[in-house]
Structure formats: C-alpha cells, structure tokens
C-alpha cells in the first residue's frame, strides 16, 4: 500500500530536478565558506588551508565598528519589535474577530508588502527632514527603522502561539480568584514566552541581514556589517569578506536551528 501511494505521486524527472536544486542551492554557499579558509586570496584556486582571513578581518577597525553597530542595532530593534508585537498579539487574539483587528494586522504586515527600496526611500526623505529640524544624527533612526520592519517577523510566531492557546486556562485562573495581572504573569506570559523568544530571534536575524533600508537610512559613518560588505564587494573581492560572511552565516544558522527547535516542540 505504502509502495503504491509512493508510485502514484512520483512524477517523471521531478526527483532529479529537486536533487539538482538542493545541490545548486548549497553549492555557492559551500564554496564561499570553503574559500574563507583558503591560504591564498583567490576565490577559485585552492592554495591550502589557513585561518588567516578571520583575524585579518577582525583586525580591520571598520569591520569591528560595523559588527558592533550591527549587533547594537539588531539587539535594540528586535527587543522593541518583540515588545510591541507581543502587546499587539495579546490585543488582537483570543477574542471575536473585529474589523479593527484586520486593520492592525494590515498595519503590522505592511513592511512585508512594500518593496524594501520604497520603504528605504520614504524613510530617507522623512528622516532627512527630522535630522535638519532636530540636529540629531545618532543610531536612533536606524533602530526605529529596523524595529518597524522587524515587527511583523516578531508578531507572526507570537500570534500563532496565542491562537493555539486554550482560553479556558485564563478563565480558570480568574475563577480561582487570580487578579488580571496575576493571570497574565503566571498563566498567559509563560504560555506566550516560547513564541516571544522565537519572534525575537526572527526579528534579530531580519535586522542583522538588512541591507537596503539601512543603506538609505544610515548617516555618514554608520555602516552596519551588511552595508560595509556591500561597499567592499563593489570595490574588490578579498577573502576577508568570505570570512565575515561565514561568521554571519553561522550566526544565522544557529539562531534558526534554535527557532526551529523552539517552535517544533509544540506541534
């Protein structure tokens, strides 16, 4: 029986294409990682194993500053995004659907629908006026912009978590004379927590990876790691970019694996 259902769903050539797709999907990334350990500075000719590009990249002051800035912005933005997303998710789930709810939903998901370049341009225009009026040039603009486009990524897993929640638990707590705050603190919050952590990680990764919006919003000397890399790639290719990419890749994979395990437990 199992054998039979396998054969009916098999379509000629599909498996071959799929395997090729998987190989081609990973080959370029694999090459990039492999050549970050190349002793020479070619990206195509292997000259022996070496770790030289990693310290070399790290000794570059510009890389160091960009890395720290990226982490700063991603941390602040993902915390803000997760905070407002958690509140919004609590406000838009666990009750009868209203028209207001879909408005909130559209507003929060808006960054997913607008091309990044358009958001980037709009923010450039908006912030340039604010910069003139207030004279403030700091990282606040980047954090605000990142927090805004990270919010939908934080919101979705939290909402999914809340929608799967048993409403009776809150009612039960109230029946047992728990105050609304106690109910929230001891019942709702622990249940939301895995969703919030998952959302925080997605928001962090999203912020860390952003190039386009950052490119438009940043003031002079505010390069993040991706915008620094973008500028470097256009100039020349040197293997230290491979080393930075590999580390960034590693961080993404670690966070994603954690996210995956965190959200899978439930289902």
């Amino acid at each position, binding site marked *: 029986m199992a054998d039979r259902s396998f054969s*009916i769903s098999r379509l000629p050539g599909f498996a071959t294409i799929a395997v090729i797709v998987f190989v081609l999907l990973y080959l370029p990334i694999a090459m990039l990682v492999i050549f970050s350990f190349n002793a020479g500075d070619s*990206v195509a000719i292997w000259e022996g194993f070496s770790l030289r590009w990693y310290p070399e990249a790290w000794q570059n002051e510009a890389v160091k500053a960009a890395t720290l800035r990226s982490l700063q912005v991603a941390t602040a933005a993902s915390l803000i995004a997760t905070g407002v997303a958690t509140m*919004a998710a609590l*406000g838009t789930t666990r009750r009868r659907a209203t028209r207001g709810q879909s408005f909130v939903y559209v507003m929060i998901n808006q960054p997913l*629908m607008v091309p990044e370049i*358009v958001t980037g341009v709009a923010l450039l225009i908006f912030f*340039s006026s604010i910069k003139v009026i207030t004279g403030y040039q700091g990282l606040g603009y980047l954090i605000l912009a990142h927090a*805004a486009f990270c919010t939908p990524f934080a919101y979705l897993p939290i909402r999914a978590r809340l929608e799967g929640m048993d409403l009776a638990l809150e009612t039960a707590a109230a029946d047992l004379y728990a105050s609304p705050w106690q109910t929230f603190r001891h019942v709702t919050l622990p249940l939301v927590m895995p969703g919030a952590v998952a959302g925080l990680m997605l928001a962090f990764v999203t912020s860390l990876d952003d190039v386009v919006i950052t490119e438009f919003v940043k003031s002079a000397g505010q390069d993040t790691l991706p915008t620094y890399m973008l500028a470097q790639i256009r100039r020349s290719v040197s293997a230290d970019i491979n080393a930075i990419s590999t580390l960034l890749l590693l961080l993404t994979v670690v966070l994603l694996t954690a996210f995956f395990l965190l959200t899978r437990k439930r289902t």
Partner: protein
Amino acid sequence: MSTPMDPKARAEVRRGWLLSAPALVLLAVGASGPLLIMLVYSFLEAGQYGNVEWVISFKAWFNVVMTRDIFDGTLGFADAHLTIFWRSAKLAFLTTVFCFVVGFPTAWFIATRTPSMRTALLFLITIPFWTNLLIRTFAINQIIRNEGFLNTGLLYLGIIKEPIVMLYTDFAVFIGMTYVYLPLMVLPLFAAIDRFDMRLLQAGYDLYASRWQLLRHVIVPVVKPGIISGSILVFIPALGAYVTPRILGGGRNMMIGNFIELQFGQGRNWPLGAALSVVLLVIVSVALIVYTRFATGGQDKSHG
C-alpha cells in the same frame, strides 16, 4: 454588527486597541507615514543639491516617462527610463517563471517524502531563505566572475579557452535573482501540495489519465493558490530588487531599484526618485490585489 455591544465586549475592544497602540505608532512612524510624505515629495521641485524646493510641480511625474530635449525643447519618451522599466519587468517575470519551473518539482519532491525527511528538507530550504541576501548574491558573484570557480574550472578542463563573461550582464541578474528568491516559491508551493489529496491521482489513473494530463488537469488547478502565492512572493521583491542587480548587474544593467537609488545619490532628483517609488508601489499593490482576488476567490469571497 448593528447590535449594541455590551460593556464587557466594549472594554475588551478598547483593551485590544490600547495593546496594539505601540505597534501601530511604531509602524506609522517607521513605515506607513513616510510613504505619504514620499508621495508629497513626488509633487515638488528638485533642489539643486539634492532634497527638494517646496514648490508644487508635476515635473517629476512627467519625467517618469517623458523627456524634453535639452537643445530644441521637443518632447519625447525617456528611452533610458523605459529601457530600465522594461528590463526590470522582463527580469522579474523571467525569474518568477524559472523559479516556478524548478520550484514546483522541488516542492512536489519534498511534499511526497516521509514526514521526517520532509521536515529536514524544508529546513534546508528555509536556511537560505533566512540567510543574508547579500551573502547569497556575493556567493553567486564568486562563482560566475571571470576569475571565479566556474570559469576557472572550465578553463582547467580545457572546455573553454577564455573566460565566459557572465558577471555584469542581465543573465547574471536573472541567475542571481532565481537563486535568492527560489525559497519564496518553494515554500508556498509546498504548503499547497502538502494539502493536496493524493487519492485524486489514484482516481485520475483509474480514469486512464497520463501523468502529464494529471499534472495539467488535476494537480495544477488544485494547487493554484500556492502557485499564485509563490509567484507574487517572487515577483514583488524581484521587481524592486536592489542588491542583486547592484552586485551582479553592474552600473549599466540597472533595474528600477538602482535607478531610484541613483536619484537620491548622483542624480540629485529626489522628486523623480519619489515618483518612481510610488510607481513601483502601485504596481506591487495591483499585484497584491490580483493575488487576494485569485488566491481567495475559490473560497467564495467574490460577492463580499
């Protein structure tokens, strides 16, 4: 809707708004609001050193497609702009089609594996999806550049005598976009195929349908919402792509995204940049409206 709400329900609604308020404010300041300001800017005069003069003008909108000859003042189509629009539309379309052609078999393959295998393969598709787009584009750059892996390999094997120039061509942008946006096609296709009832195939076989006929008349119509989702998800970012054409297309093979950026850099024509952004936004909105019509049309929302 018309029945008056009891106080408890009303309090609940108010609480909902209060809890959503911080997110709404953040998104209004950091995303939606600036779009409206951008629209205003598209109707202003360009400042000499960038930014704008606060004079109402339709020049930017006029310049989107038309141009006035600097010598004799005659009107004509802005060929350079039209070329860029055409290239963007063509590349985004080709990318979408090719992503579907290779994405569909991949999604089908994943959906027909055992559950544990399926989870693993989905994870493998998801990783590139979340991996920095810049890094993935850069990886492609390294493969196809003249002194890159592909050319070096082919030269070494004696298949070619000189490196094939692939970088900084439309072809490179097409390959790069297909590579970076493919997961966006595979994931919704998988979701649709996963819900597909394989017994329909059995029924089709019993009625002497060939595999091709099954694909054409049973599978594709049923998973259509997934096909539309995937196509929209690929087409929208591909049309507004900025990083991929910049790294793989070089200065001459601009797409709309790069052309918009140019207006805020060397071009010093913010209103034109704003107008072009509005055009892009409108195209994307139309695509999204078409999407909601088609993707949810089957669930009988047509009268609503």
